[in-house]
């Protein structure tokens, strides 16, 4: 699982703006949370920490957040996105994958 990170860090879009956090002015980077486990987690890497949001958010807020997000997840995908997928599939069927990395700019 931890190998995943380097995969998208090295992906073409993944590495374009690693400095954004420092530049966007919101100031969150300077703050080191002093509340208990978080401080030492930052240095130990936390690979063994159990995954999942229940360890992150208080129960009620986390539930609300997941419920709200679940609503968004369940909204139907609009036609324009389905049409786009069909178009991409057609295009791919017509053009075998080429090493030149042909771009679609539509």
């Amino acid at each position: 699982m931890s190998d995943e990170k380097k995969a998208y860090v090295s992906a073409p879009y993944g590495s374009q703006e690693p400095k954004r956090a420092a530049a966007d002015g919101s100031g969150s980077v300077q703050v080191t949370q002093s509340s208990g486990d978080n401080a030492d987690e930052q240095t130990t890497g936390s690979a063994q920490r159990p995954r999942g949001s229940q360890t992150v958010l208080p129960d009620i807020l986390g539930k609300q957040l997941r419920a709200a997000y679940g609503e968004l997840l369940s909204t139907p995908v609009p036609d324009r996105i389905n049409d786009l997928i069909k178009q991409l599939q057609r295009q791919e069927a017509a053009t075998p994958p080429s090493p030149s990395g042909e771009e679609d700019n539509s």
Partner: protein
Amino acid sequence: MSNGLQGRLNDDLIAAIPNMRAFAISLCGNRDHADDLVQEALVKAWNHLDSFEEGTNLKAWLFTILRNAYFSELRKTKREVADSEGQLAAKLSVPAEQQGHLDLVDLNRALSKLPADQREALILVGAEGFSYEDAAAISGCAVGTVKSRVNRARTRLNELMTAPPAQQQTDDASQPAADRTPRRSARV
């Protein structure tokens, strides 16, 4: 041609579209804008599937492309303020009877008031269920930064959700009265 891998990737990509939309809507607060971002990300992803490392997390890869599209646009247009002020709440428009005991409208209005990077971290970890490590890789920042952002977002959300209603109702004229029953202070 042997389309096995490509076909499977395509299927996985299509399966991730609802998540991409939910993430994009949560980020930018506007469904049309979100679908623009999803479309842009899908085209990029589709045309660069060969650069995706098989066996790694496709959804995380897609989210990386998507959020980069959003944040680079945000930097260019500085539209964060316009997009974050209540538009998520307005667009979500959960019918009152569907809210149950969850104040989704309140939550989304509060969410929209967070700085974009905190909102991103909270959605990735708290709603989408990514690990801190995956969220950090997606956002291109340190794991500790993600944790800090999630903590700050959580703190701020709690403040917003427990704030006196008067403070939040400047744009409530269009909301049905049922959306404003004062339940929020009891919940958090």
